[in-house]
């Protein structure tokens, strides 16, 4: 069993190899059964995550966007090993999680998560420093050192230890609590931080502060981020690469500017088009995306997006497009972008 340090040994000079994938997810599938009927049999499945394959490179921020119900949070929990996948593998720096070389516990000291609900994420009966110090003590750090580390981290996230260490979560504001959650996540000295809608519940001004804090921390501690959000502006600000999810699958993934500037998937374009514009000369007049996303219990055949896509054709309704490269560091799952798919832009809806 390798230790955390051994897993993350880079080459002998101590400098990390450029763009080496830190986390690799392959074929992740998670279906939740719906039980009903006389004997509680699973009559249907919610296909929350239906075949996810992507990589996160060392030192980057990967943004994940999508509407409610697209599977982002489930994916986050799968990556944190809080729920077990039905199929698929996760590898950290080339080692299978839960395999012979990398135990789940060691993995957990390397990958941490910040949740959306800042209040529910903290034990109301523990002091702030107690909450932060818990993780390190689980991994063997003596209590005094854990408290010392907790106080140091509090200072680092901008909360004066003298004033905050001995307090309780209900006495603090949402922004302060989220800083504490970040400090708690960092207490285990992880390499990868998953931020699941971490700033979504905060006021805008507070959100800005926390985002800037995250950027500072990333540089200082050489972290890698997975940033999940439904707020497209924020994701653009924070991310190096962005992944767009739809109904449990990847619609498009690539460098931020490639996606935001020249996206190759109608869903991405619709999402971007629905962002409200601050420019009075370019008002958003019409909602480009109509209807609710179809049910993850019975995804439509063929391309999952075809029911809401203005460019959908018979091909789209029949065959599901695969994720394919459409540029340097840019992949998309759409027939239109694939010259070999046989897509003909004939039946356009008004």
């Amino acid at each position, binding site marked *: 069993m390798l230790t955390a340090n051994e897993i993350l040994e880079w080459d002998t000079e101590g400098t990390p190899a450029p763009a080496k994938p830190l986390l690799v997810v392959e074929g992740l599938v998670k279906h939740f059964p719906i039980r009903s009927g006389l004997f509680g049999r699973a009559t249907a499945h919610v296909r929350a995550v239906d075949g996810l394959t992507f990589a996160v490179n060392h030192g980057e921020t990967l943004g994940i966007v999508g509407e409610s119900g697209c599977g982002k949070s489930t994916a986050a929990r799968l990556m944190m090993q809080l729920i077990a996948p039905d199929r698929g593998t996760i590898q950290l720096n080339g080692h299978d999680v839960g395999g012979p070389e990398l135990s789940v516990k060691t993995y957990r000291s390397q990958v941490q998560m910040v*949740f959306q609900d800042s209040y*529910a994420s903290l034990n109301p009966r523990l002091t702030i*420093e107690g*909450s932060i110090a818990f993780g390190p003590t*689980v991994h063997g750090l003596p209590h005094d050192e854990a408290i010392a580390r907790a106080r140091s981290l509090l200072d680092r996230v901008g909360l004066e*230890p*003298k004033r905050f260490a001995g307090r309780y979560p209900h006495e603090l504001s949402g922004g302060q609590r989220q800083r504490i959650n970040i400090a708690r996540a960092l207490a285990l000295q992880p390499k990868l931080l998953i931020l699941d809608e971490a700033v979504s519940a905060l006021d805008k001004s507070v959100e800005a502060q926390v985002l800037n804090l995250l950027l500072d921390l990333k540089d200082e501690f050489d972290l890698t981020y997975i940033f999940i959000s439904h707020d497209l502006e924020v994701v653009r600000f924070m991310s190096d690469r962005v992944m767009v999810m739809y109904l449990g699958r990847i619609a498009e993934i690539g460098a931020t500017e490639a996606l935001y500037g020249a996206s190759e998937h109608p869903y991405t374009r619709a999402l971007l088009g629905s962002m409200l514009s601050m420019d009075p000369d370019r008002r958003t007049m019409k909602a480009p995306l109509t209807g609710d996303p179809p049910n993850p219990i019975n995804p439509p055949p063929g391309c999952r997006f075809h029911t809401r896509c203005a460019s959908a054709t018979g091909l789209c309704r029949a065959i599901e497009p695969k994720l394919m490269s459409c540029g340097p560091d840019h992949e998309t799952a759409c027939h239109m972008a694939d010259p070999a798919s046989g897509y003909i832009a004939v039946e356009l809806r008004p």
Partner: protein
Amino acid sequence: MAVTSLDTASIAEPVLRSPSYSATVWRRFRRDKVAMIAGMVVLALILMAVFAPWIVPDDPYKGMSLRRLKPVGTPGFILGTDELGRDMLSRLIMGARLSLFMGVTPVFIALFIGGVIGIVAGYAGGWLNTILMRTIDVFFAFPSVLLAIALSGALGAGIANGLISLTIVFVPPIARIAESVTTGIRARDFIEAARASGANAITIIRQHVLGNVLGPIFVYAMSLIAVSMILASGLSFLGLGVKPPEPEWGLMLNTLRTALYTQPLLCALPGLMIFITSIAFNMLTDGLRSAMDLKA
């Protein structure tokens, strides 16, 4: 990553400490006059029970037929004498021992047993939860009085058997509450965060679950004490439970029934003690519950 941004001296500095949850509850409780009075009554009763052998004016076991059923206010026997000529005041004071003991002990034992079952079932979930809780449900099919009496009737009279039957009666409701509260806590994000830190189930239960769960369970158990006392005395009243000549309020009610028409006031005294104790415990529990409900 090095812990150097703060030097060790300032880390060791005293830190502003907010009052803990228990301190806050105590402070709120102290402000509730009714609850404080109830608490003092309970304390007085407990002290009376503990020091009974030393504070009784007369021997509670010594009876003389000559002076049986003397009314309240007889000089020398302020509260009269019972049907065997024993001093009522002494019997009442001494009776506090057994009555309180039979009332409180089953609840505490059930708190432990039911608490463990409920917390384990609540945290584990899945098939373990189902098995445990369905078994508990079978006991819920019996109204508690019926179960207590049936068990006592089957096992026979006596203090030990009474304790056993009452404990069995109280384990299911406590287990249910414990399971319900634990399941609620289990679903909260901070438990997920604790799991994400790599802690195992025992550590999480110890550090995160217990602190949040013991409060409500304890308050619920306390609310059962009054019921337990009435039930325990009821068992003695029926002839199960405590056997004569031990002084116990319920038993005394039973043996004094024959004097219902001749010395009514005398008859009512033991029941009055049960009533006072029961009200005091109930108000104490109500006050505690209010104090623990931080949102109110």
